[in-house]
């Protein structure tokens, strides 16, 4: 693919709001996972909850979109000068020339969960205040963000489970390549809700302790929430020093099982191979891989096989889910932004809580931070239904 410039980005997770708070947490080893006290949930687990979501107010004209997911998106739009950067891009390109390709798996389903609890005992009717289209509907996130940023280009939500906000980079690249857009806002949001907490619990995938990816005693995922955005534009003929490019994207399917990855990581490897091919790079060109690394036994083992089979055992890799928890549909954008922060600062994040590496896993998994010059980083996102996506970022050549 033709590289795209990643000119602006913003992030919100349990580590805090904005790039500085995120970097500060990674540098100091301060994770965002806490014992679960979300809503009325009674599960024995740790979660990565974003502080202050309940106090966010959407602009009055968009109040109908009010739900936890869109509030998270609103929070992220305010960070790192992102909304202002998009406003400037809108002046340059025109509102109809900027697309909005976002991901979410939950959308505002929490609103429907609360509405079902408040059904009329006689008629079974939902409360009159419940708005399906603007809160619950899967597409509402893209609709809200498009309105919030005053954009009129093509807009949709990708909902391919946990690969979602990684895959949107490829959607944007295609839309720009075909000339339908000049720039695109990508990213998305996924918020805590009862469906995912109790759903992952039913699959026996939720850890009672903060998650420990690649640890011999790992015991499942910690769920989290987050949001993030990136502005992608065509590359400049002479990019400014320090410009970051999206160099490649690779997508694949496992064709194996709805909730368990292919045991040898075939789909994961295919996504990474396709990302390398689309970037015109070789395995040895990658300096760090931010793993999907959920801390499930099957998931970590499959990814380890894919990584060592393709990239060998010398490239530093780590999962940052011990910091943020698994932010599900937002994992792709949260970890893409962490990967770009690593590229920019040379900070290669180690993995909190991972004490004793599983001896069956062979990757060079980082438990402590390292520092060094990075030229190209890869980030992996793999989801339910066997949906895989891998992205490569690097300095503009």
């Amino acid at each position, binding site marked *: 693919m033709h590289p795209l410039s990643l000119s602006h980005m913003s992030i919100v997770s349990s580590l805090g709001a904005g790039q500085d708070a995120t970097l500060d947490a990674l540098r100091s080893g301060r994770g965002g996972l806490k014992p679960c006290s979300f809503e009325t949930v009674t599960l024995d687990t740790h979660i990565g909850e974003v502080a202050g979501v309940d106090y966010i107010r959407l602009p009055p004209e968009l109040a109908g979109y009010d739900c936890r997911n869109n509030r998270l998106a609103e929070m992220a739009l305010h960070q790192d000068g992102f909304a202002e950067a998009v406003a400037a891009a809108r002046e340059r390109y025109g509102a109809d020339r900027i697309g909005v390709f976002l991901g979410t798996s939950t959308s505002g389903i929490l609103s429907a969960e609360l509405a079902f609890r408040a059904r009329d005992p006689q008629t079974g009717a939902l409360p009159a205040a419940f708005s399906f289209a603007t809160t619950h509907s899967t597409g509402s996130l893209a609709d809200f963000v498009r309105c919030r940023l005053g954009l009129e280009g093509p807009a949709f939500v990708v909902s391919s489970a946990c690969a979602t906000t990684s895959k949107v980079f490829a*959607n944007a690249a295609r839309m720009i390549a075909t000339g339908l857009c000049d720039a695109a806002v990508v990213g998305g949001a996924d918020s805590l809700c009862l469906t995912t907490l109790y759903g992952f619990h039913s699959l026996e995938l939720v850890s009672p302790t903060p998650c420990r990816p690649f640890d011999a005693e790992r015991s499942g995922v910690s769920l989290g929430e987050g949001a993030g955005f990136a502005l992608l534009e065509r590359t400049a003929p002479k990019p400014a020093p320090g410009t970051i490019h999206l160099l490649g994207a690779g997508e694949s399917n496992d064709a194996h099982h709805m909730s368990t990855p292919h045991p040898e990581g075939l789909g994961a490897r295919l996504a990474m191979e396709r990302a390398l091919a689309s970037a015109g790079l070789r395995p040895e060109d990658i300096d760090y891989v931010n793993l999907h690394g959920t801390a499930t036994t099957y998931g970590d083992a499959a990814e380890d096989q894919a990584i060592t089979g393709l990239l060998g055992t010398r490239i530093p890799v780590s999962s940052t889910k011990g910091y943020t928890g698994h932010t599900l549909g937002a994992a792709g954008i949260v970890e893409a932004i962490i990967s770009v922060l690593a590229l920019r600062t040379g900070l290669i994040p180690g993995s909190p809580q991972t004490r004793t590496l599983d001896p069956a896993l062979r990757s060079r998994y980082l438990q402590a931070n390292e520092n060094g010059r990075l030229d190209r980083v890869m980030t992996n996102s793999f989801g339910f239904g066997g949906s895989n996506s891998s992205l490569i970022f690097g300095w503009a050549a």
Partner: protein
Amino acid sequence: MRAYVEGIGLLGPGLPGWAESRAILAGDSPYVATPAVLTASPLLPPAERRRSVPTVKLAMAVGAEALEQAGRDPATVATVFTSSSGDPDTLHQILETLATEERDISPTRFHNSVHNAPAGYWSIATRCREPSTSLSAHDESFQTGLLEAAAEVSADGWTVGLIAYDLPYPEPLNKVRPIAGIFGTALVLTPQPTDRCLARLDIDLSRRDEPVSRMAEVGLEALRTGNPTGRALPLLAALARVVAGGAPETVVLDLPPGSRLVVRVGAPC
């Protein structure tokens, strides 16, 4: 963007498949809105077949019909699944369960609740490891799916199966989100003409206010406006006429705010 149509799948009220529905869509036979019947796909392994929910049944039925007509091995074809929402019954059951004290969701129900469940089952059934994306854009889900599929054909040179589906919710969700009937459709789109091509599509985004295409027949027009995937009907009707030897036609689908998807439907060569 240009794409060639190699296969078409269709299942809806009174529209039991492409071959059986062509004359109705073209306006040459009367339309009778008998309910659509869903069956589990024989492509699925028995365990998955038992678990398959209505969205999976519908998506797989129209997808299989289109791929079979195209004469393609589905393992080699990328897919775009598009729908306004996930499986209606699964969603209803989960929301009811979470409103009780126990909150004991079944694991199968949970994995069926993800929006990309049909894409997951499809890849398991067809052994397809090609890229697949699952989209949603509320009432514009079909239009955005067509746009994405055409972009994949045009930018990446992939052959793409576009699979669109929408089904009604049970009460009380039906009151807040009414969806008319069970309706699904699929198109196999290729970058180059082949000897199996049925038609050529030239797809553009427009900012002019061309009138949106409608269905002349009252029942089909109700399906078009009542079911998000029904927005595909004017395109399917144009395909039915062009494939039967009719003159090229232009179809206009709305893409708010302020855009139109303009599709010129012509003979493949």
